[in-house]
């Protein structure tokens, strides 16, 4: 029975051995000091046990020298922990530029994942071995957290904004995916598996599950939602050109500027007045997220919003589709 009891988690990402290395350092310090203190306390307790009621030990009010020793030694050991842990954390926060992007939407109580090629999954994620994967994540309701213990990766998934995390799997296999942030009744069942496939298997999986790409779906929405009416690709139009927008710094009307990342594009769609591009009027109507699939008040779902963003990110100069004649701009919401 005890033979199959795991005592240490599998290491299946490039970051896992680095996290475990700093963990073993802190664990070493922990074992050393716990043993030292326990030994000294027990040794003193036995050695200096009271042998007679008349015994009054010689008082010792302290020693500056010793106080500084046990102020400085823990300080130095802790400083090493800080620097070591922080350097790995910074690596975790910066996905490599060539990372494959996967779009994640969490909701009570399931994970919905979309690949750029349009492949969609629920509670399962297929990724290739040996290639960095970046997750762009949001939630439809409360806070969730995408956690893969074998990768030592965890990031909160928040409603109303995008968060990201990344990992590079090192071993093909099947690994637990958990929701780590308490999210209500079925929190403990909000999980599934990450399948790490060899490059060949991954290519095969992509082909078998191929669908219209996210950008293509986003292009349809771009026309359907009348975005193209104003964002027509003409610099003289009422709205800025979106070609090559992602990753650029955009000057704003109030003299500030903003780096155009996913969160900025999201905000510009949902709250257009928040950051208006220099040289344009705040005339764009805000688009409203649907609270459910059959919500007629809203314009688009979280997943559709991700498709639109994927499309905008894919736009290169000259690629904006032609303006449709009968398009009329949607009325501004009251």
């Amino acid at each position, binding site marked *: 029975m005890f033979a199959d009891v795991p005592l240490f988690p599998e290491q299946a990402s490039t970051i896992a051995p680095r996290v475990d290395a700093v963990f073993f350092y802190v664990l070493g310090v922990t074992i050393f000091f716990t043993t030292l*203190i326990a030994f000294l306390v027990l040794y003193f307790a036995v050695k200096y046990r009271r042998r007679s009621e008349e015994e009054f030990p010689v008082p010792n009010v302290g020693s500056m020298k010793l106080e500084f020793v*046990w102020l400085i030694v823990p*300080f130095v050991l802790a400083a090493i922990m*800080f620097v070591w842990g922080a350097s790995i954390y910074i690596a975790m926060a910066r996905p490599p530029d060539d990372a494959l992007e996967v779009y994640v939407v969490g909701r009570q109580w399931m994970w919905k994942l979309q690949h750029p090629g349009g492949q969609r999954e629920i509670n399962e994620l297929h990724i290739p071995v040996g290639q960095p994967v970046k997750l762009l994540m949001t939630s439809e309701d409360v806070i969730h957290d995408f*956690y893969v*213990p074998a990768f030592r990766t965890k990031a*909160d998934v928040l409603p109303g904004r995008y968060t990201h995390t990344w990992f590079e799997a090192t071993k093909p296999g099947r690994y637990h995916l958990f929701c780590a942030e*308490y999210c209500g009744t079925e929190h*403990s069942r909000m999980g599934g598996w990450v399948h790490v496939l060899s490059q060949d298997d991954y290519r095969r999986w992509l082909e078998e599950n191929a669908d219209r790409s996210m950008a293509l779906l986003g292009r349809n929405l771009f026309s359907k939602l009348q975005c193209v009416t104003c964002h027509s690709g003409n610099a003289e139009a009422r709205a800025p050109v979106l070609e090559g927008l992602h990753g650029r710094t955009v000057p704003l009307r109030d003299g500030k500027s903003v780096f155009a990342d996913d969160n900025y594009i999201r905000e510009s769609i949902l709250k257009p007045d928040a950051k208006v591009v220099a040289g344009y009027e705040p005339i764009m109507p805000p688009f409203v997220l649907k609270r459910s699939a059959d919500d007629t008040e809203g314009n688009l779902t979280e997943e559709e919003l991700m498709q639109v963003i994927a499309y905008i990110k894919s736009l290169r100069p000259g690629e904006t589709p032609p303006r449709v004649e009968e398009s009329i701009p949607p009325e501004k919401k009251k």
Partner: protein
Amino acid sequence: MTTAIAEPRPSPPHHRPDDRVPDYINVSYGVKSWLLTTDHKRIALLYLISITLMFFIGGAFAVVIRLELATPKGDLVSADTYNKLFTMHGIVMLFFFLIPSIPAVLGNFLVPLMVGAKDLAFPRLNLASWYVYMTGALFTLWAMLAGGVDTGWTFYTPLSTSPTTHTHVIPTAVGILILGFSSILTGLNFVVTIHRMRAPGLTWMRLPLFIWSIYGTSLIMLLGTPVITITLVLVAVERLWGIGFFDPRVGGDPVLFQHLFWFYSHPAVYIMILPAMGVVSELVTTFARKTIFGYKFVAYSSMAIAVFGFLVWGHHMFVADESAYAALVFSALSFLVAIPSAIKVFNWTATLYKGSIVFHTPMLYAFGFVGLFTIGGLTGLMLATLAIDVHVTDTYFVVAHFHYIMVGGAIMGYLGGLHFWWPKMTGRMYPEFWAKIAAAIIFFGFNLTFFPQFLLGYLGMNRRYWEYAEEYQVLNVMSSAGATILGVGYLIPFVYLTWSLWRAKEAGPNPWGATGLEWLTPSPPPQDNFPETPVVTMPPYVYSRKEAEVVG
């Protein structure tokens, strides 16, 4: 413990029983004389009864949680019930037991005695704070009986403000909000008493270390509690009227809640552990018959912990989209707060060196505290290390860590202090044999319960899971077995301490040969504490004439 050799030694030992001043328990009789008392010692006993009740309610929730987790499938209670159980376990244990435990019981009883005063600065406010506590507690218990709450004790938004969460969030929050005022009033009372009512000659550097720790704790209560009060009001306003503070659907920011919540709730951890550290300083010196090693370092480290404790709240949000720069700062500050804790542990250990050590039950709890707090503190360093925290936050590793601090630390300190001052509070000794058995059972049961949870957490088992993956079962069964033992361990002191009130032998004024002012007055003390105001001429922890010459 202050002077050993205070000049006018109050109440010489050879009084005949009939010319004794009646002690505070026998000075008047009847329910009314207790419910309307302004005597800090009687109020301490009112708190003792109330928090003991809350402790066993919180413990009962824990028992069901551990029974459910004995198997991977959710087969004992439903998911919703389970979620309510861990939520209510946290709320009862933290807000209604641990936060008031040492301050409201031992602090209330001892602060005036230790500083040589007749009572706290505001005796009626003190009684009021107990009534406020009871109002909050009854409100919360009512909410639990009416159906409970399932948001986790952390009330994270937008889960807690979402209209789809149907449980009693607002009544519970109101209960905690009311309770907060009790904390504030108690803290205020202690701060004023320690500043203004010290006996002649009792300078700051002659204060017992317990008083220093209670002083630090009171500052946190005064400065931190209003923040949680405001936060809970904002949650209620968003839930009732949909005004957006935290839910992005109505224009709020969910992480803002976490900042506000932890701005109080992290310092609140120090409300729980600092008083226990103060208790341990008293125990180690008394039972080693030796003055504390490095008095100033131990005293100032309490203040350092109280101050730094306010600067580390962001370490609860390393994976919650916190900016990497903020995470770096909060990580560094979290390491700094560990240093004053380390200083205390080293100084207690050094105090034992060449001491004259006896192993009465309170000292066993002090040893237990030092060992378990060391493990709890060092695993805290793992959590402060950014890369490790990303992996283990929100797992059982965190659960194990904070139970080592709060159960292994704070409750060990509380039980040690309760046994140590029991003779003073009741005039009777506890039965030493049974007390040692219970201490051993608690220590063993505690470790069996919580050590496997460190392994579970690093393996990736998440907290607040009603069902879990099968490979985690063996460690969970160990933990559940340990919890059973721990539960029995906690029942034993309850039985023999109650028994001791009537049957145990009388204690006399100073059964331990301790030095504090509280040991100069009879046990139990008279209503006014001291027949004459004591005058202090010595630093604390001076155990012999010879020592008095060296230190004095």
